[in-house]
Every structure is written in structure tokens, then in C-alpha cells.
């Protein structure tokens, strides 16, 4: 692993869906796909992508320098190689013969523009904080780009596979059209209504994509989305509720695809407020999560037990040796008494915006009462939750989408000065480990560092993570080639280039 990373990207790696579909992919056919969001905020600008349907749309029309494999490692895409000796200065050699949908050839200048535009506040990029680590991106040859980082980061290849960093044409500011190098051309885009895509005959992967066309809709109402699948009006949907999974499995010709992801809903105990900053209170709450019950009743077993740290099993740096924290009302009671909080009353904020948090809060309320703590569940509307409630109460809930690398997750949500350091915890040792791990060349030591960070979060951070929530897709069985890329549903949003139709 270490050698491979030092060498940068190499071709090959695990193939998607191999073994599931031994038949050769067929060409042709049109499918209709329904995502979970649809609004006037729908966009063709990769930098502004906010929701799953946006990501899926962007992966249809654009390609990145790299793309994800099934284990979230990166493989070459528009960059034939992406290499670095010191993990600060990265050299990307671009694939030749790639053209945009308007016929213009891909140039290094397009890459420079696509990466640096995130730093311009006017772009309103969702990944500006990540892009801030690009000190300089320059054209260093007729076919070559050099990316200089502000500090070492071995994960750059994985970061660049993210949909926000897909490559657009130099100078593009108006995104009413999508001119990319992706597997499909955009023939029609109406925000809040539909996106229609047709095969890009000049796609840079030989023989792909397979489908003639895709119509991407957003059906925000989950019941309607599942009904549309079951009635044959759409052929692939994402964000299936675990409660609907049985309905889909019961239907002839339809299946559910579970993708075990790093998505979690977490309890936030602010470290700048009383009594939630008390380490005993934090431990008590973590002991009060009945994780087994959450997994079984809330998610019908479509979830994985978590251990109060954000790295999911399946990630290369997951620390399997960390003892699982059990549900233990006696120890919770002990810590509550030690904190002097036996018999106290405390409000907890939950919202449908953070998936499952209202039910989790009710469960906590029940178990906390047995341990001598009275929680008052304040259920607040999803509308405006992130701007008005999230991280603003001593005790509340958050929800974090999967991130491709451990570094990204820790940097965005757990570093002391991270913008979304949800519990506001400060741990110098953690920060030092995080920075050191980015530049560490020895893979065994790097793994050790990420392990230590998981222990620190598990023991001290004011964040309780009960389970990792699986992402569920429903699909028509005539749709083949669908697999899992655990960054999210719809095959990590990039189904479009992989699937084919046997109708």
C-alpha cells in the first residue's frame, strides 16, 4: 500500500460487480433514475453540488482526474498518472485524446481552472476549505499539471475523485449547459424537473458507456419514489427507507442493494457548555446508546454498529481492536452521579434533518430516565436546522455524510479549528497526529496514527456515534452492472458509466 501510494496511481484494481454479472455488458437502452432531491437549486456546476442527485448528475457529464474504486482508493481517470515524492508537489500527466462534449481537446489549463476556481468566494464552492490546501496549480508541460499543496497530503488522489473536483472547461462561469468530458452529454436540464442525458460517443473509455440515454428525476417523497420503481416508471432509485426495503424485495423483478457506508447520525455534546463538557457526562451518554436496538428497530438491520468514532469498518484505517462500548445503564448511572447530574433535567435537540435523530433521542430519553437523567426531547423542523440549531445547543444531533478518506473526515469534523468541529472539542495530541499522518511515508506508522486518533475520539470527544447507516438503492433487475462504492448510494453516484440494460 505504501509503495503504491508513493508511486501515486497505478492502473487496475478491483473491478465493480465482477462475479455478480458474468454476462458481457450490452449496449443500448434507456433508463429513468429517480434521486431523492429536486429543487430550483439543482445545478450543473460541480463546485455547487449539494445533494445526491447533483452528484449523480455531475458524474454523468464530467470526469475527474481520478475516480473511486470499490474500496474508495483512487484509480486514474483524466490523469494517467498522479505522482509525488514528498506528497506536497504532485505531478499529473493527463490522458491524451480526451475531448469535451463541444469537441475541444482537454488541456492542462482546464485542470488548473477547475481546481483553482474553488478558492474564489464568488464560486460559492462546497469544498472551499479542502481546496484551500492547493497553494499553486500550474501548467508544467503540454500535457502536464503540477499541484503544490500547503502541506503534505497522501490522500490527494482520493480527494480529486470527489464530484466537486470534476473537470470543467477553462473559463466556464455560466453553467446553464454542461460541457464536460463525462460519459454522457446533457441534452436537457430543467432544475427541479428533470435532466436528460445521451451517450457521449467520444467518451475516453473504450466501449463505454453502455446506455443510449438516461433521464434523471428527483422524487423527494420516499413513498412516491418507491412506488415509481415498483410500477416500472423508473428503474433505479436511491435513499430507500429500511421500512420500504421489504416491499421492494417482495416484488418480482426488483431488488434492494445495500451499500455499507460511513454515513452516521451523531449525538453532539458541546465542550464549551455545561454540563455537556463534563467528561463523565460524555461517557454516561455514550454508555446510554443501545446500539443493537438502534440498528434493529430504526434501520431494520441495514446499519453497522459504531463505536463512537467516525471511521467505518471497511475503511483501510479502521481500528478493529478498539473494544466495543456496550449499552451499560449501570456505568452510565455511575458517571452521572460522579458528574453530580443524577436527577437533572436537560433538553436535547433532534430533527428529521438528521436522519433517525428523533427516534434516537426518544430512545436515549427512555434509557437516561432509568439511569436518573431526565432528557426533554425538542423536535425541531428540518427546515433551517443546519443554520439555526446544529452545533448551537449543548446537546443536539448532527448527521455526517461519508467522506472518502480518514484524513478528510478528521480534518473537517474533528480537528480543533475545523469549521464543523461539532462538539467544539480541543485535543492537541489529536491535531498533531492528524498533521503528522498526512506526510507519513511509512504506511504501518500511518495506520498506527489513525488508530490512535480513533482511540482519542472514542475516549474523549463529545460526539456519540451509535451506528453507521447503510445506503439502500432499489433497482429493476433488468439493470445490470450496479455495484457499491461506499461514498454513497447509486454506486457512489457514478452508476451512469457502469450500468447496462438487459430489457
Amino acid at each position, binding site marked *: 500500500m505504501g509503495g503504491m501510494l508513493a508511486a501515486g496511481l497505478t492502473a487496475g484494481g478491483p473491478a465493480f460487480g465482477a462475479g455478480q454479472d458474468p454476462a458481457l455488458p450490452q449496449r443500448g437502452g434507456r433508463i429513468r433514475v*429517480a434521486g431523492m432531491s*429536486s*429543487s*430550483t*437549486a439543482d*445545478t450543473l456546476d460541480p463546485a*455547487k453540488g*449539494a445533494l445526491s442527485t447533483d452528484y449523480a448528475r455531475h458524474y454523468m457529464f464530467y470526469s475527474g482526474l481520478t475516480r473511486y474504486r470499490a474500496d474508495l482508493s483512487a484509480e486514474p481517470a483524466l490523469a494517467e498518472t498522479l505522482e509525488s515524492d514528498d506528497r506536497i508537489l504532485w505531478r499529473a500527466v493527463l490522458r491524451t485524446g480526451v475531448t469535451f462534449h463541444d469537441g475541444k481537446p482537454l488541456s492542462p489549463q482546464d485542470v488548473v481552472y477547475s481546481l483553482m476556481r474553488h478558492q474564489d*468566494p*464568488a464560486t*460559492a464552492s*462546497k*469544498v*472551499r*476549505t479542502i481546496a484551500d490546501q492547493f497553494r499553486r496549480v500550474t501548467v508544467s508541460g503540454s500535457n502536464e499539471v503540477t499541484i503544490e499543496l500547503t502541506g503534505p497530503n497522501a490522500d490527494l488522489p482520493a480527494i480529486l475523485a470527489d464530484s466537486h473536483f470534476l473537470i470543467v472547461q477553462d473559463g466556464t462561469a455560466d*453553467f*446553464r449547459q454542461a460541457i464536460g468530458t463525462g460519459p454522457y452529454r446533457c441534452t436537457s436540464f*430543467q*432544475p*427541479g*424537473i*428533470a435532466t436528460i442525458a445521451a451517450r457521449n460517443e467520444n467518451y475516453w473509455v473504450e466501449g463505454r458507456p453502455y446506455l443510449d440515454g438516461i433521464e434523471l*428525476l428527483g*422524487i*423527494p*417523497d420516499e*413513498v*412516491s419514489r418507491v*412506488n*415509481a420503481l*415498483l*410500477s*416500472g*416508471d*423508473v428503474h433505479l432509485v436511491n435513499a430507500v427507507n429500511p421500512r420500504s426495503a421489504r416491499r421492494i424485495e417482495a416484488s418480482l423483478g426488483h431488488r434492494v442493494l445495500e451499500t455499507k457506508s460511513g454515513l452516521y447520525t451523531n449525538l453532539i455534546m458541546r465542550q464549551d457548555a455545561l454540563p455537556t463538557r463534563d467528561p463523565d457526562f460524555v461517557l454516561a451518554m455514550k454508555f446510554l446508546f443501545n446500539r443493537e436496538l438502534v440498528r434493529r428497530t430504526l434501520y431494520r438491520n441495514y446499519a453497522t454498529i459504531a463505536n463512537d468514532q467516525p471511521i467505518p469498518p471497511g475503511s483501510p484505517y479502521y481500528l478493529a481492536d478498539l473494544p466495543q462500548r456496550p449499552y451499560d445503564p449501570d456505568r452510565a448511572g455511575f458517571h452521572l452521579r460522579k458528574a453530580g447530574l443524577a436527577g437533572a433535567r436537560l433538553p436535547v435537540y433532534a430533527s428529521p434533518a438528521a436522519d433517525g435523530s428523533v427516534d434516537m433521542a426518544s430512545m436515549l430519553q427512555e434509557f437516561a430516565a432509568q439511569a436518573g437523567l431526565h432528557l426533554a426531547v425538542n423536535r425541531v423542523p428540518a*427546515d*433551517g436546522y*443546519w*443554520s*439555526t440549531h*446544529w452545533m448551537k445547543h449543548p446537546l443536539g444531533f448532527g448527521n455526517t455524510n461519508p467522506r472518502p478518506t480518514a484524513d478528510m473526515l478528521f480534518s473537517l469534523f474533528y480537528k480543533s479549528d475545523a*469549521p*464543523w468541529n461539532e462538539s467544539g472539542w480541543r485535543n492537541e495530541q489529536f491535531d498533531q497526529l492528524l498533521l503528522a499522518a498526512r506526510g507519513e511515508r511509512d504506511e504501518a506508522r500511518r495506520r498506527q496514527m489513525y488508530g490512535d486518533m480513533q482511540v482519542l475520539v472514542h475516549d474523549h470527544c463529545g460526539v456519540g456515534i451509535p451506528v453507521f447507516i447503510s445506503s439502500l438503492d432499489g433497482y429493476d433487475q433488468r439493470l445490470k452492472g450496479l455495484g457499491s462504492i461506499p461514498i454513497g448510494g447509486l454506486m457512489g453516484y457514478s452508476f451512469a458509466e457502469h450500468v447496462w440494460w438487459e430489457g
Partner: protein
Amino acid sequence: MAHGSPRNRSGIAAAGRLILRRLGSALLTLLLVSLVVFTISALLPGDAAEETLGQSATPEAVAALRHQMGLDQPAHLRYVRWLGGMIKGDPGQSLVANMPVGQVIAGRLPNSLTLAGLTAAVAIPLALAIGILSALYRDTGLDRALNLMTLGMVAVPEFLVATIAVLVFSVTLRWLPSITVVREGIGWAEMLRGYAMPVMTLACVTVAQMARMTRAAVIDQLSRPYVEMALLKGLSPSRVVLVHVLPNAVAPIVNAMALSLSYLLGGAVIVETIFNYPGIASLMVNAVTSRDMPLLQACAMIFCVAYLLLMLAADVCAILANPRLRGQ
């Protein structure tokens, strides 16, 4: 005095005066509504910049986007600027969709009008027939059955009607599509199949009110002496109802229809959600959740104008149809 009878002319003059007066008050209403919508939506937590950035709203990012959207200016200034644009006929730029509000609405309004028009074409004749029939045969078995049916339709919420219809006709029988897809160049048969369930659901909700009102108005007229007179003269009951009773009963009926029709535009949000129909009601909900003020204002204005126009049309109809009001 060269054309028509004096009575007709005075009826038209009365209608003309009414229209003029109503137009004046409509402008004032619109102004007040826009002010109220603007004020109330300003009380909502968060603004368009925060909602757009969502979870990833860092203070600098929000500030930059606010500046870009012009949200860093004081509220009253934004309102005055919006009003100025509106007077010139420009509803402004959508903050979230990055295109003119007019263009966003142009993609949705025809859909809503089509749905409302089709529903009205089904619901109005049906409601009139049910209302008149149950009035003519009042207190018989037929009347009671029709009563039970209409009351039942009012009582069942539309999401239930729609969901059950989808389960039966789409998922189980597979006769009709579960979502209504609007596309250019779609055939008639395909279009009718797509609209069948949304129209049926909306008709269920609106028919009842109109039918009940028709029944009440017709029964009220049937007890009047002139009806007895007409019957004694030997006119057939159908002629009495259609020629003599209906024109007198038209005012409350048309009023109920106008109310129902205005509901079809703005109140169709549940049907639009279930059938994933891109209409203007869900657009407005969208505008609220994304805090897209210009778009929200434009939607509010459209609903308000539609309501006022329908009410005006109902009153004008009532004046022109009723011989006695015409004379006033």
C-alpha cells in the same frame, strides 16, 4: 340606446363599474400581500445564502454568497428594489436557480394551468350534475346516496385518495403511471394516462364543495313562488331548473366554483408531491425552503392575482346571469 335593451346596458355598466373598483382594490391587496409575505419570510430562520451552503456554511462563505446575492443590503432597500422591478414588469433574478424568476415560472405555470384546466373540465360538469340531481330528487334514496358520496369525498384527505390510487392502478394493476412526466411532444394517449390520477384526486376534493353548494342553491330557489308558478303553467321540470332556477342560483354556485378553482392552483401541492408533478405550488414550497425571496414573492403574486381574478369573474358572472342584479 341604439343597441340592446336598457336593462342589459345597465347590467354591463354595473359590471364595468365593479371591474374598475375591483382593479383598484386588487392593486392595493397585491401590495399588502407582497409586504406581508416579505416580512413574514424575513422572520424565517436562515437566508438564501445559508440554505444554499447548508451544512457547509462557513462564515466567510456565507458572507461572500450574501454579497453575491445582494442579501447584505438592508431589508427595506431590497423590498423597494423588488417593488421597483415589479412595477416595470421584472420579477427579478432567482437567488438559487441562477436564472430570471420569469423563466423559472414559465417552466412551471403552464403545467399548473393544464392540471387546473383538466380538473375543472371534469369537476364542474360533474358537480353541477350531482348538485342538480340531488336537489331535484331531494330526500329520496338517490339524494342520500349522492350526499353520502360527496361528504365522503370531502372527508377523505387527498393524500389518502392519491396514495391508494397509486397502489391500486400503478403498483398492482400497472394501468397508469405513478408519476406524471411532462415532456414536449408527448402523445395524447400518454398525456391522458399521466393526468388521469392527479385529475381524479383533485376532482374528488373539489367536486364535493361545488356539488353541495349547487344543491343548496337550487333547493333554495325551488321553494320560491315563481317556481311553483312555472310548474303550474305546465313547464317541464327540466326546463324550470335549467332556464328559470339556474340563472337565479348562479351566484353562490359560481362563487363556490371560483373558490375551488383558486384552490387548484395553489393548493395542489400534495398532489404535485405524490405524482412528482412540476407545478407552481411545489415551486413555492421550494422557494420557501431555499429562502429564494424573489421567487417566493412572484409565486405569492400569481396566487393572489389568480384568486382576485376568479372572484371578480364570479361576481361579474353573477351580475350578468341574474336578471334582478342586472337591473340594479
